[in-house]
């Protein structure tokens, strides 16, 4: 784009913008190694809050619950979202397609309090009529799978739209059955979206506070719920340590996924 803006303007804007986005996170990580109990006074380097974090049983059991919920919800999301994304791209006519498309995209923007409250009322109504499900891990998994599936379907649709259908047609011409083509050609072809979708659904579930708080029962406390009740009492250095661990794990996973996708992309270009 032609313009006569000075050369330092672009980099300057980028530094300000990304400084704003990342400064709080960098400070959080830095202060997780703070020796002082006061969160805003620097008392030297120390790993003491990581030790305290690992001895915190409330966080430990909540983390296990969260991981189980996230793994189950992400896997369900992956199946439902892949089916949905595939249907929307490949089947251009079926009854209710408009409603289907709307319910696939609306959960991405509808405020979480609405999703949470409406799902809770569904589960309560169901329970009084049918006697199940009782509120707890199962209801959180069902709720998270719902919005997770919507995110997966977005990624699958984007990848399918750019997928070269000549490969499928070639396989069909060579006598492969449609289901074989779907499983041996199409699914491997969109595997980057499947991996990214599972990971996104997993981290969204791991991070959700509002919806889980509505639909859970007394038996299940997730990690964000435990963190939230601790943060409401004030800033705690243990939460800083937990946040740092979380950020590290997520960055590694996302980095790994990015590397795998880039490698696959290179391989495809070579062949």
């Amino acid at each position, binding site marked *: *784009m*032609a313009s006569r803006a000075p050369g330092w303007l*672009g980099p300057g*804007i*980028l530094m300000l*913008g*990304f400084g704003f*986005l990342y400064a*709080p996170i960098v*400070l959080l990580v830095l202060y997780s190694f703070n020796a002082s109990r*006061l969160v*805003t006074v620097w008392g030297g380097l120390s790993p003491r809050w990581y030790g305290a974090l690992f001895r915190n049983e409330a966080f430990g059991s909540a983390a296990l619950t969260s991981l189980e919920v996230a793994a189950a919800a992400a896997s369900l999301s992956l*199946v*439902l979202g892949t*089916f*949905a994304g595939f*249907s929307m791209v*490949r*089947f251009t006519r079926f009854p*209710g397609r408009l*409603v289907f498309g*709307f*319910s696939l*995209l*609306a959960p*991405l*923007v509808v*405020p*979480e*309090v*609405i*999703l949470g*409250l*409406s*799902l809770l*009322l*569904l589960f309560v109504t169901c329970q*009084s009529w049918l006697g199940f499900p009782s509120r707890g891990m199962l209801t959180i998994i*069902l709720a998270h*799978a719902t919005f997770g*599936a919507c995110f997966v379907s977005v990624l699958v649709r984007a990848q399918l739209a750019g997928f070269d259908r000549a490969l499928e047609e070639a396989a069909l011409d060579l006598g492969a*059955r*449609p289901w074989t083509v*779907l499983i041996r050609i199409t699914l491997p072809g969109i595997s980057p979206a499947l991996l990214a979708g599972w990971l996104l659904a997993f*981290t969204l579930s*791991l*991070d959700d*506070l*509002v919806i889980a708080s*509505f639909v859970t029962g007394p038996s299940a406390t997730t990690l*964000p719920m435990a*963190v*939230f009740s601790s*943060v*409401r009492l004030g800033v705690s250095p243990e939460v800083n340590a937990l*946040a740092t661990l*979380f*950020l590290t794990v*997520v960055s590694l996973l996302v980095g790994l996924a*990015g590397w795998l996708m880039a490698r696959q992309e290179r391989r495809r270009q070579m062949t």
Partner: protein
Amino acid sequence: MTGLGRIGRLVLIGAPFLWLLVFFLLPLLIVVKISLAESTIGIPPYTPLLANGNNSLEWRGTLANYALIAGDRIYLRAYLGSLGNAALATALCLLIGYPVAYAIARSRSVRRQLLVFLVIMPFWTSFLIRVYAWIAILEPQGLLNQLLFALGLVSAPLQLLNNQFSVQLGLVYSYLPFMVLPLYGSLSALDKSLVEAAADLGARPSQAFLTVILPLTLPGIAGGSLLVLIPATGEFVIPDLLGGPSTLMIGKVLWDEFFNNRDWPVAAAVAVVLVAALAIPLLAAQRFLEREQAA
């Protein structure tokens, strides 16, 4: 793909469709239903809409919850406050996000990929943690006040937390990536020769921006604005952690109505009014996302 068979097609479409009918659309109808009920002590804590009368089923629905919302100024103030806060946050995100997206779109390709990755990264990290990080910065004894004090700009700590300022800051911070990505999408798709043509024809940079670049990136502006405005209006975590007693936002009102007052029918009515208030932006957002998907 044809040839998957009727049953295959039925499973591929039917499974997710049925799931969304049960877990997204049906629950919205149940919210409407319960907003017409009365609060009661029991399990579940609301009255049935149909009850056995003398000989037949009797309709027991009531609009009392809506009357309560309409009559009590606090709800109106919360709705307007949320919409106002969200609208201001949207405008600020646009003001900050546009130059950032523009600078990213103008970067060279390798660096551009890295910058886009850095914008997406916050989506993957914890929302709760990113909001929480601001508490330590904005506290009276927090890092920002320490910095301002060390620079000699203030002599007493500023009240930066638990007020309107911190809520606004939290909203802008949390939703900025939702604005930058659609803007980047439309800016990177912009045909550069059009801008060059405008310059060749003697347009000043500001003229070229207003008459060529801005109109061509309107879809990105509209999309980003909707992705910020709608969720920000119903936001709960930010007003709860960063807001003070004077911050009235409808997401928090709904939460308190449900968890603290245990009044499920009123919470449901608050939700119905919120969805109604957001109906037009919601439909517009859905259309925007649909078009993005098609592209």
